[in-house]
């Protein structure tokens, strides 16, 4: 087994916890389709599938961090077109700040060998 795969296995919980952060970051810049979110995440350690993403997006919508509008597509039925709400932007900023804080704390603790 490759070293990176081992890390993959060991840090599942860490990635799960950060998935919301990753998804919010993906949506942050522009309006996106679910397919775009999946596409962008697929190249990162946060690669996920619809089975996980749909429930997560519906929760984020319920918490009013994201919203969507229906957009016509060239093929098939209209699609949901997601974007961040202002609350979502605040949430993302908070997550960023907190992430930095965590990172700095870990550095101060001398975790980096």
């Amino acid at each position, binding site marked *: 087994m490759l070293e990176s795969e081992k890390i993959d296995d060991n840090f599942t919980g860490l990635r799960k916890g950060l998935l919301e952060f990753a998804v919010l970051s993906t949506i942050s810049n522009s309006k996106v389709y679910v397919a775009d979110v999946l596409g962008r995440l697929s190249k990162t350690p946060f690669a996920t599938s*619809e*089975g*996980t993403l749909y*429930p997560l997006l*519906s*929760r984020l*919508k319920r918490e009013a961090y994201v919203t969507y509008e229906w957009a016509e597509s060239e093929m*098939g039925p209209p699609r*949901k077109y997601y974007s961040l709400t202002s609350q979502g932007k605040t949430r993302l900023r908070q997550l960023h700040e907190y992430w930095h804080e965590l990172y700095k704390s870990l550095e101060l603790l001398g975790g980096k060998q």
Partner: protein
Amino acid sequence: MKKVTTISLAGRAYQVDEPAYTAVHSYLEKAKATLANDPDTAEIMADLEQSIGDKCAAALANGKTVVSESEMKNVLEALGPVETGEETTPVDTASEERPTRKLFRIKDGAMLAGVCKGFAVYFNMDVTILRLLFVLSVFITHGAMVIVYIVLAFVLPKADDTEKIAAAYGYEANAQEVAERVRQRVSSQALDGVGRGLTTLWRVLMKIASLVAIAVSVVATIGYGVGLWAIALGRTNFVGSLSQYNGWPQGLAITAAYLSIFIVFVLFARVFDRWSSGRKGTRISDATELSLLAVWVVSLVFAISLVMFVGADFRDYANRHNGYIDFEKGHICVTEICWAESDTCAETTDGDRVKECYQM
């Protein structure tokens, strides 16, 4: 030819074959169960359905109109299992997925009427253990259990269709799943509690028994080799009228003895090993088994008759030479003139007479 079903996913119709329908149906049911506590279940389900629909449409690109099972499996795999952030409560789903088992007679894998098999499935135990317990109880109750068995064989309903088999095993009456499970056999199914403990113990004991049987057959083979070698070197020569047994009759005798031991223990080893692994194993064909049995019977009869003939001759010989058989030391001793260069020759208390002893 396959039966095709039309399904509606997010308001669009798709034609899928039967196994594909089963797959997508169970996927969506599982998703619904997982999302039971989610306030937006309906919306997420609609999202999922639409996504499945889109992927099916993509799979049907070049002129095909029916989604096959393998295509549906790919679609569902791409979708991934539905997970919410919260921990699901496995206890609930387990009790949901496993309705209580019912007591039936099960003919599949039965020895007699399937009573033991039915009880084994009901208690989720290895059927062999239950059979042993049953045999034990027959002895303890002086045979009363046989009557109980016969009564049960008449009273218990027989699981003769998939629905009843499903009820016996505690599965939902989904024909495909039952077929799948029955194919996998109960032994590979997770046994619970006491059943698992006893089964493990049983398997360990059977493994040990199988290893012992193998060891015995290996030792027998080595002994046979040593024996043949000794005969070839003329180390087992008899004297006097017993010398008719020198050479090939001895070889024949130990071959017969060897075969009658070896075949039994090899077969024991196979049976024990099969029991220890809990699987059916590759049964050797009836023809092979029958011919092995025939060889065994022939060698056994041969070995026994040789022992009787030679034993009688030994007795005669001992009597004629005023000898005796010392069973404790395993010696046959005769008083006779010492024959040339034999190391078993010894002076007796009488002086001129010598005693010759053969190891039995």
